[in-house]
């Protein structure tokens, strides 16, 4: 069986993961890119095709499973992580993925999300963040910026948005990353790294909704601006950015500051190295809060990943351990357990 599977996966291509269903997202939607990068990445993961399961909730992003020729479950709003948790506990050998959006995961599914992270269930959560409700036609979402004018907030939204990676870190997620729909190579790399991670992997993908929130990430993805607005996090490498790699992020205590590497005052040695395996989540937490708002570049890449035992692994181990100790339960043992007495 093992060798068969390996043989089979060797031959897989992106096309093998495309289902027969017509893709029905709006033309120009960022979701197309995410689908393409997943289909390009899956063949190289060395996982038998039949062992992939995609679970989604409700929203544009949650149509994703229909377009993947894997096992798929398009469920109900907000519950994808809970359903995926059940799949993974029941069948730890499966590779379980969640496709979700900022409304599905951060709003109605918020409770399931934080508890999935806390438990470190070995599932991969790909959150398409377009900062808007698309499928219900344009209401503000829990990641929309304050003051957002939408159909449900004609005078601007009053509430503060969630910072998804920061929420994930706060919920003890063991792998937290971000990528962009417009950065295919980077996204493929992050998806591959998420797949390799053993534990809850949370990947936020900034995704453009060209109908209801067009240009939300324009400054971060446009060729002309992105070098100066985005810093790519790489492990053990200095956090440099800028067209000429002439700017760096330096931690001044708990404050990240941008230093200029071109005027001779600072050198590359002054730029802080990114450590994605940092035992403490503090640095990663600070990184998630970097954005143009604070005159800082927006990071993409892996904020942090740590290895710790998974929930599903723990459940399976306990089952094995107790079975070894007590012996496999039989129907007879079950029925005649407890205090019994005989009537003659």
């Amino acid at each position: 069986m093992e060798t068969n599977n390996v043989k089979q996966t060797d031959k897989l291509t992106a096309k093998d993961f495309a289902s027969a269903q017509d893709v029905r997202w709006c033309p120009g939607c960022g979701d197309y890119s995410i689908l393409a990068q997943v289909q390009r990445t899956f063949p190289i993961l060395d996982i038998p095709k039949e062992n992939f399961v995609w679970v989604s909730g409700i929203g544009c992003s949650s149509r994703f499973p229909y377009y993947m020729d894997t096992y798929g479950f398009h469920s109900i709003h907000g519950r994808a992580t809970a359903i995926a948790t059940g799949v993974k506990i029941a069948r730890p050998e499966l590779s379980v993925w969640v496709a979700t959006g900022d409304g599905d995961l951060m709003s109605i599914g918020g409770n399931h999300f934080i508890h999935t992270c806390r438990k470190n269930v070995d599932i991969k959560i790909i959150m398409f963040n377009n900062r808007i409700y698309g499928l219900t036609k344009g209401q503000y979402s829990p990641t929309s910026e304050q003051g957002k004018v939408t159909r449900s907030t004609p005078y601007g939204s009053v509430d503060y948005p969630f910072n998804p990676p920061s929420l994930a870190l706060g919920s003890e997620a063991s792998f937290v990353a971000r990528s962009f729909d417009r950065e295919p190579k980077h996204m493929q790399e992050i998806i591959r790294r998420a797949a390799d991670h053993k534990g809850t992997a949370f990947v936020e993908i900034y995704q453009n909704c060209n109908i209801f929130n067009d240009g939300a990430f324009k400054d971060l993805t446009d060729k002309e601006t992105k070098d100066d607005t985005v810093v790519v996090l790489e492990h053990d490498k200095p956090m440099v950015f800028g067209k000429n790699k002439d700017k760096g992020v330096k931690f001044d205590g708990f404050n990240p500051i941008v230093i200029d590497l071109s005027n001779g005052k600072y050198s590359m040695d002054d730029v802080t190295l990114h450590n994605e395996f940092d035992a403490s989540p503090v640095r990663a937490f600070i990184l998630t809060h970097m954005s143009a708002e604070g005159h800082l570049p927006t990071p993409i890449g892996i904020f942090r990943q740590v290895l710790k035992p998974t929930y599903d692994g723990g459940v399976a181990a306990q089952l094995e351990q107790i079975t070894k100790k007590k012996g496999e339960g039989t129907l007879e043992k079950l029925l005649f357990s407890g205090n019994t007495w005989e009537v003659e």
Partner: protein
Amino acid sequence: MTKSNGEKELQSLKEVTVRFAGDSGDGMQLTGTQFSNTTAIVGNDMSTLPDYPAEIRAPAGTLYGVSGFQLHFSSTDVHTPGDNADVLVAMNPAALKINLPEAKKDAVIIVNQDSFDSKNLKMAGYLVNPLDDDTLAGYKVIQVPITSLTATALKDTGLSTKEITRSKNFFALGMMYWLFNRPLEPTLEWISTKFKGEDMLIDGNTKALKAGYYFGDQTELFSTRYSVEPAKLAKGIYRNISGNEATAIGLTAAAKLSKLPLFLGSYPITPASDILHYLSRYKNYGVKTFQAEDEISGIASAIGAAFSGSLAVTTTSGPGLALKTEAIGLAVMTELPLVIVNVQRGGPSTGLPTKTEQSDLLQAAYGRNGEAPVVVLAASTPIDCFDMAIEAARIALKFMTPVILLTDGYIANGSEPWKVPNPDDLEPIEVEFATDPAKSRPYSRDENLARPWIKPGTPGMEHRIGGLEKANITGNVNYEPENHHFMCNLRAEKVKNVQRVIPDLEVDGDDSGELLVLGWGGTYGAIVEAVIHCREQGYKVSHSHLKYIVPLPKNTGEVLSKFKHVLIPELNLGQLAHIIRKEYLREVITLSKMKGLPFKSGEIQTKILEVLGGGNGN
């Protein structure tokens, strides 16, 4: 039937109802459970009713903090925990006040004399000590200074005053063991297991139990002790079992019978949590339990497990069932096998969490958006929870459908002796996973209209399911008007097809006549006893009990048509009556009770006699 036993009379009784009552911190549930287990082992038939408040440790001495435990045991068949107590043990004035109405007019009342001080009397609202005035006239009152006798017996154990005071329930239990001529050994064994490694507590509780026993023997307060001969139960191995434990064992047995792993997704809720507790111990039976973050995750995780090939279960009580509503609809649409156990409690909203009711029947039958038919079953006794849990799993797996199993707080917490079935007599549950793409499509149909079950991990069978409307056979998303109409009818027909595999409705008594009492669920025992008493008085009355409610057994209409009157007693405002009227366009007589307590057989008897023109039954 009396004989001499030293200086005391030993009187033989056919049946006795005993009620233990005290503060919720007095250990009355434990005392009652111990007395029950010993009584079962002695060989009496028996039924119990734990009756406790929602507060874990309400302030001592208050009326709302009173916790009670009633059991009825007999040398013949027992069907209910007894209407009114022959013996009431009241550990304080509040317990006396609350429970006196539940005792027979000439009952033996044993009180803890020490607790009848001015503070406790005031808390219970007694202006005058009821032990001193005529409040208890007509009762056989026995005053025992339980607290101080326990303190004296345990003074050299090294236990703290608090620990000694907490042992007084064992003194009371020992006294009752003497009074009813029961052995101490089962409880002594329990004490040594429970407090293993805590020798002082073993010593203390053992001393308290024995002190109570010897006190009974030596005191002049008791002139008579009683014996209840073993019941003539069928030969076999027995164990005492509550409804929740029977449900847990039944679900695990179903997993064994179907050779599937069992998955439980659940969130703690009274009075269903014990099922989660029991199942979480069965790890060596391949049972995986997931204590979810909320009710919705409980069912959602179970749906995920069902999708991936487990026998999946979620357990809850009324408010939790309400939260699971949308997900049940998803299981209907995706046609996955799922068992949903609802241990009903008093509602609406938080309602009466620790009290029983049958008011979720319509929620179970209809409470979803869209046309979302599910199978609804109801267990009738603690033991029946075992059989119906297996039935629920069998139907869910055979028809690829969610099945709601209704039990209630009364049968869930109540216990009775169970003749353990021979494992070989339990019918295996056939399950086949589809593996051949040439033979099965995701939504192709068998003769019952069930779709195939296809596990992730099966090569070549990759497919997508979900909450959007599906096309038959292919299972692809389909919004076409004709298709939706077709699929809604198909799902309804599939559930209706369950009629093919369920037994016909049986009639106890004549199969035609003036009156049929039609019950469902936990009212079984009270109806049986009421019917027996009516027949003893010469009345003709028949009884049928529904365990399958959606769909109803196919002969139900025919059974009902043979009777002039149909009386439906239920712990709600007429929910089964609503279904029967709708299904068969016939009038029924309802008997409702919404007090958080099960029916007393006398209440049903009175109604039967009223219908039959036999007066008011007094």
